[in-house]
Structures are given as C-alpha cells and as structure tokens.
C-alpha cells in the first residue's frame, strides 16, 4: 500500500490548497487585523483597542442586543417544523407532496423572500389586508416602521425561511425511528404522549440538536440578505446584527479593523455553539 500514499496526497492537494489560501489565510488575517486600525489598505497596531470598543461604544451594545433578541426565534423555528414533520410522519394524504412543497421556498433566495416580506409587513401590505379581511381592520400594523417591531418582522421572516430545511431534517429523523419500539411501548400500556417522550424524542435527539445548531448559526450568520433588503439595518440600529454591522463598519464607514474585531466575536460565538453541539453529541454517544 506504499504507492497509495503519494496518490492520496496528490488527490487531496487541490482542496487543501484552495481552503488554505482562501479560507484559513483570511481567518488568520482577520485575527491579526482585529488588533489593528485598518482601513482596508493600511493597518497600524492598535492592540485591544477595537475590542475595548465593544464596551465603550453603545452601538455595539445595541447590535449584540439585537442578536440576542433574534435568538428568541430559534425555538419557534425548530418547534414548528418538528410539529409539521410529526404530522407528515402520520402519512396523511399527499404527505410526500406537502413535504416537497414546504421545502420549495428554501430554493428561493433570501433576497426574494425579503422583497416579498417587505410587502407583507408594509402599511399598505398583505398583513393589514388579511387583518381587514377577518374584521380586524382597526389593528393597523406597520412593523417595519418601529425599531423593535422591525426586528420582530425580520425574526418572523427568518422563522418562515427555516421551515423547509428543519422539516426535512425532522422528517429524515422520524423515518429512522424503529416502529417496533413504538409497538412494544404500546403493548406495555404506554399512551401516545408517553411513547413520544420515552421512545421517539430520545431517538431524535441527534436530529433535534443538529436543527438547533443549524438554526442558531443561521440566526447569527444568514440574515444579511433579509436585513439588506427589508430594513438596511434600520430604523435606527433596530435591525443591525453583528453580521450586518461588520458589512456597514467596513464597507460604508471604512472601519475594517473594527469589522475584523466583530468578525472574531462572530467566529467565537459560532465556535461556541458548535462546541456545545459536539460536547452534547459526545454525551449522547456515551449514553447509548
């Protein structure tokens, strides 16, 4: 097998090179530039100056607050698809078609989703039309006009956008649950609720965790398009999240060093979420 090694090196070399030059190198540079005052061309050493801004600049506080508030949408974006997948798993009439249809919006860009969502939440938009239609015309909403409500609108759109992916993950998970175990539980006198919590849920733990991590990471890193199209970060800083602030700081204000610092904070956050996932996975592995 000695001849296998050089071929292995050769076959993996292009991927390793591409990743090293275009991913690893810029990550290392981000770490370095986060410690500098950098305008995209010239960088001068600034030590922890950018990081101190995290505590001194109230705008950063607002950005972090927005990110934390958006995290509240994660449980919703997981539980709803979980319920949908559970119903699909009952194999109601047309369940395959429904599953395919639910995923369809996921193939549409978040730019397009954001465009439609803007019309949905606008003052003369679809939501108010619906409210009028059910006799609630006196409740006139204009979510995108308020700082907090605009964040709510982005969060709701995010939840909608995650339904397809998470439903598919849970559908795949439910398909792996051994029906004979459920049968056995029923014979032992367990009701459907009991069977769900003691048989189905433990077997789905890995899928549940994956969906939670994917959704959490998406909430931190995938909302750029929605925010860009729906609110441009406003009103005020109402919908400016870390990932959007990085773009703004660097490309509209020329503060690349602070953008790099925020990039590190984002990386650390996502890394932490991932580690929690890995740790929990290992724990599940030990238990079973």
């Amino acid at each position, binding site marked *: 097998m000695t001849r*296998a*090694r050089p*071929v*292995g090196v*050769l*076959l*993996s070399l292009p*991927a*390793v090179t*591409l*990743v090293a030059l*275009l*991913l*690893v*190198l*810029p*990550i290392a*540079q981000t770490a370095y530039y986060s410690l500098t005052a950098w305008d995209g061309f010239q960088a001068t050493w600034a030590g922890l100056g950018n990081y101190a801004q995290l505590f001194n600049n109230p705008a950063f506080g607002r950005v972090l607050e927005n990110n934390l508030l958006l995290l509240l949408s994660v449980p919703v974006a997981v539980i709803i698809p979980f319920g*949908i997948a559970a119903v699909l798993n009952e194999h109601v*009439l*047309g369940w395959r078609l*429904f599953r395919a249809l*639910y995923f*369809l*919006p996921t*193939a*549409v*860009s978040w*730019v*397009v*989703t*954001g*465009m439609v969502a803007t019309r*949905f939440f606008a003052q003369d938009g*679809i939501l108010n039309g619906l409210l009028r239609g059910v006799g609630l015309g006196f409740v006139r909403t204009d979510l995108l006009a308020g700082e907090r409500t605009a964040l709510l609108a982005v969060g709701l759109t995010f939840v909608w956008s995650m*339904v397809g992916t998470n439903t*598919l*993950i849970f559908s*795949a*998970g439910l398909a792996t649950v051994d029906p004979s175990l459920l049968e056995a539980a029923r014979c032992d006198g367990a009701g459907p609720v009991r069977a769900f919590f003691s048989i189905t849920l433990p077997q789905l733990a890995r899928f549940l965790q*994956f969906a939670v991590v*994917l959704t959490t*990471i998406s909430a*931190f*890193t995938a909302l*750029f*398009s929605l925010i*860009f*199209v729906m609110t441009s970060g406003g009103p005020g800083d109402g919908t400016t999240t870390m990932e959007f602030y*990085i773009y703004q700081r660097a490309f509209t204000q020329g503060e*690349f060093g602070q*953008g*790099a610092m925020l*990039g*590190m904070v*984002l990386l650390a956050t*996502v*890394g932490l979420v*991932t580690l929690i996932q890995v740790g929990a996975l290992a724990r599940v*592995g030990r238990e079973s």
Partner: protein
Amino acid sequence: MARRMTLFLLMALIAVVMLYPISFMVQTSLRSDEQYRTGAGYSLGSWRALFATLPVADLMLNSTLVCVSALLLILVVSVPAGFAFAKLSYPGSAVLLTAIIACAMVPVQSLVLPEFANLARIGLVNNYLGAILVYAALGTPFATFLMTVYFRALPDELLEAGVIDGLGYGQIFLRIGVPLSLPAVATVVVLQFIQIWCDLLVGLLFLQTPGLRTITTGLGVLASGRVTDVPVLMAGATLSAIPAVLAYLLLQRFLVRGLTVGVSK
C-alpha cells in the same frame, strides 16, 4: 378518520402559508403598478419594464457563469479529496480533513474583509474569477466532508479488485471512484447551486460593477433602493427564482442526504 381529515387540512393550510409568497410574487409580476394597487386586471407591462430597468439577460448569464464555474471547481477539488481522505489516507490526512470540516463552520463575515483586500490587491475584485474562487472555497469544506463520508461507505474490495487488475491508485480513482461518486455529486450540485445562486453578500462585494453582478445581487440592490415599482421587482424575483427552483425540483431526492449528513457521526 376525522383526525386524519383534520391533519390533512392542517397540512394544506401550512402549504398555503409556505406557498403564498411565491404565488404573490408571480401574480404581482403579471400586473402593472396600477393593477397591483387596485388588485384587478393583468398585463405584461412590468416584465417589459424589468428588462428596461435591469440588464436581466446579462445578470442571468453572469449568475450562470459564476455558479457553474464555482460548482465545477468545487467538484474538481472535493471529489478527489474525498476519495483520498476516505480510501488513501496518509500521515496527517485526518488532521487536514478535520481542519477542512472546521472551515465549514466559519461564518463568511469572519473572513470576508481580508479576503476582499487580498483579492483586490491581485486584481480579482470586479472579476468573475474572484467571485468564482470565493464561492468555490466556501463550498469546498462541506463538499469534501460529504464526499469523504460517501466514499467511506464504499467497500474496500472495490479498490482491491482494481489493484488485482493491475490499476494504479490514480486510475482506480478515475475508473471506479468517479463513476460511483455520482449520487454524492448530485447532492453537492443541488445544495451548492441553490446556495451560490441565492447568495447576496459575496456577489455584492466581489462583483460591484453593475454589468458584472449576479441576478440575485442586482435584484437585492434594486430592492434596497426602494424606488422601483413592486410589480417590476416581483418580475425580477420570479425570473431569478426559476433556475434554483428547477435545480431543486430535478434533484430533490439527493437533497435529504446533504441536509442530514451532519447528523450521523
């Protein structure tokens, strides 16, 4: 029976919620601004206006060129790498694989600033090649991971048969590995095509010249400007959505594996 009926109606209701925005998009694109406001009548005026507002043919072509090139590059590097990591491991290959997979977790925003500066320095910003390289690099970690998992599941006997037939390992990869990888290739294609076609940020930064933009970026910029009529925007949205939706419809059976490969350790 009543229960199944209730569940069916519930599923149908969810289908309406999920598909309403798409039907709103298509329907609105078939109206003039006035027809949209009054909610009556249809016309193709907004589609004509779209072609006058944006160089849509160029943008669609740009998207296609960038998307297909990046996809090819992803496959050219990840299929052999996956084969190597799964079947031809060498000292250090496990560490390299772990490092590559870890890169899949890194948010774009955490590397995009130096990436932009680096590529600008060598003249690859506002150049198709720059965007292609960035998209390819971003897609490679996941594709390599998927390919490795896929090749690992293939029995070693297939390789041994090749060795007995007197093939070198390079030939074994080309004649046995590549043809067997096609289902995994389809998974990478459908996931990455949707991802790249629908991306805004990389296109926004690396292809800034309006004539070089991808359709998604061109549309995103137009929409954020808030001056274009809604029906015209929806015509653009409809056009931009077609290729990725088609890719999904054609390759949907390969998609589930891609979404759940991160689950099975």
